[in-house]
């Protein structure tokens, strides 16, 4: 078992599609939360295999996309300072801020580096004691254990030149925001498998109950997604509104308790602005007071900034599943991966880039 190829079997996929066909008796609208799942769906054309009754809308699960422009402008301001090594995951580098992106800062001589893990940034801080190393801590619950560990280790080592700019966001409040939005059409959710690997899925049970929606924790391979869709549709057809777990090989109900413990030690829940959506109460993580010295926002005292969004970009609607990328007038013309107007066109998990990559020639 290699845990990859087995879940890409085409014949098995066709069988699932057929099982879905036999299950569905009326129209249903489902949302996959995670941008990684959006990409699998478009890459393998899963949406086009489904019966007409099933509409898939794409959710806000792209941390790069939902990082508010103000935080991005702060990142750019910090990265522009002399003596700073600014580290980020690659996807973040080309997201447009109000006037610049991080790659432009680099082109102008700023020390901006792409890292694979926050531990790489930590190493850079050890190797460059005379410089300030700042890590752009973007991500959902999946990434929080890694960033918590980096901060904890920095404290254990007494590193004085390491800090993080936290843009952490949480999934359950975002699901509730979508369900509470007037005119919501989403009737069932695929919950993100790796977020739930860390946090478990008990948090989703009250949501399923309160809003009467089935939620199926789902993995990322094509068969995972088809099975997740099948389970969600079956629940809808049978009138069940509960949480089920398709991705049981990785997800347990209680989640990864060790990881949760360190997240809670280092971070606390805070209100957070989502790009294009606005502030969602208790939807983000910030460093606890005990770890305040590692907070780049405090260390660099970046003031509040006025931001300028591209007037054409409808990322907010895209991220809430209310519009699909081709409905954006700039899609594929004035907005492309080479010249993005908004984050969803940049990120490897953004819905606009997924449509651009996989659907244009079709």
């Amino acid at each position, binding site marked *: *078992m*290699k845990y990859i190829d087995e879940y890409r079997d085409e014949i098995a996929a066709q069988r699932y599609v057929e*099982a879905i066909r036999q299950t569905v008796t009326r129209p249903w609208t489902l949302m996959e939360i995670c941008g990684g799942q959006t990409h699998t769906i478009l890459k393998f054309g899963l949406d086009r295999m489904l019966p007409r009754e099933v509409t898939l809308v794409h959710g806000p699960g792209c941390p790069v996309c939902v990082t508010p422009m103000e935080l991005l402008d702060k990142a750019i301001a910090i990265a522009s300072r002399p003596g700073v090594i600014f580290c980020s995951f690659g996807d973040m580098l080309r997201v447009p801020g109000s006037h610049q992106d991080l790659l432009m800062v680099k082109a102008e001589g700023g020390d901006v580096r792409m890292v694979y893990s926050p531990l790489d940034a930590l190493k850079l801080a050890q190797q460059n004691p005379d410089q300030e190393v700042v890590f752009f801590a973007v991500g959902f619950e999946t*990434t929080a254990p*890694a960033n918590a*560990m980096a901060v904890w280790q920095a404290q254990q080592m007494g590193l004085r030149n390491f800090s993080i700019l936290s843009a952490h966001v949480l999934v359950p409040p975002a699901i509730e925001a979508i369900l509470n939005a007037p005119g919501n059409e989403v009737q069932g959710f695929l919950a*993100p498998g790796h977020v739930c*690997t860390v946090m478990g899925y008990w948090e989703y049970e009250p949501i399923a109950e309160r809003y009467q929606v089935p939620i199926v924790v789902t993995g990322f391979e094509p068969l995972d997604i088809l*099975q997740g869709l099948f389970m969600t549709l079956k629940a809808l057809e049978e009138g069940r509104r509960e949480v089920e777990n398709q991705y*049981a090989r990785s997800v347990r109900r209680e989640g990864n308790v060790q990881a949760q413990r360190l997240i809670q030690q280092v971070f606390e829940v805070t209100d957070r602005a989502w790009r294009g959506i606005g502030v969602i109460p208790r939807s983000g993580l910030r460093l606890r007071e005990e770890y305040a010295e590692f907070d780049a926002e405090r260390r660099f005292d970046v003031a509040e900034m006025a931001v300028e969004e591209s007037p054409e970009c409808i990322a907010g609607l895209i991220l809430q599943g209310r519009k699909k990328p081709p409905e954006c007038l700039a899609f594929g013309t004035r907005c492309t991966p080479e010249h993005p107007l908004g984050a969803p066109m940049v990120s490897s998990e953004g819905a606009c880039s997924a449509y651009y990559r996989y659907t244009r020639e079709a």
Partner: protein
Amino acid sequence: MCLGIPGKIISIEENDLGVRMGKVSFGGIVKEACLAYTPEAQVGDYVIVHVGFAISRLDEEEAQQTLEMLAELEEVAAEQGESLTYILQ
């Protein structure tokens, strides 16, 4: 961003702070990963690795069950005298 890739643990050690680290092979490409969050994982186990951290040990039995669910679907359909496979022709 939440990309997590399954890989096989090939060695385990501790770093200076006593944090559990290890080498993980992804189809032959070996990378270092933090194993602090998977204390139960042993050499030879598969883990999901995200930004350099193992976040779960994969459960082989559960993995099999996911694949077997299809077979069950087939049986149910067969009992009902329908075939799920006719579209494959």
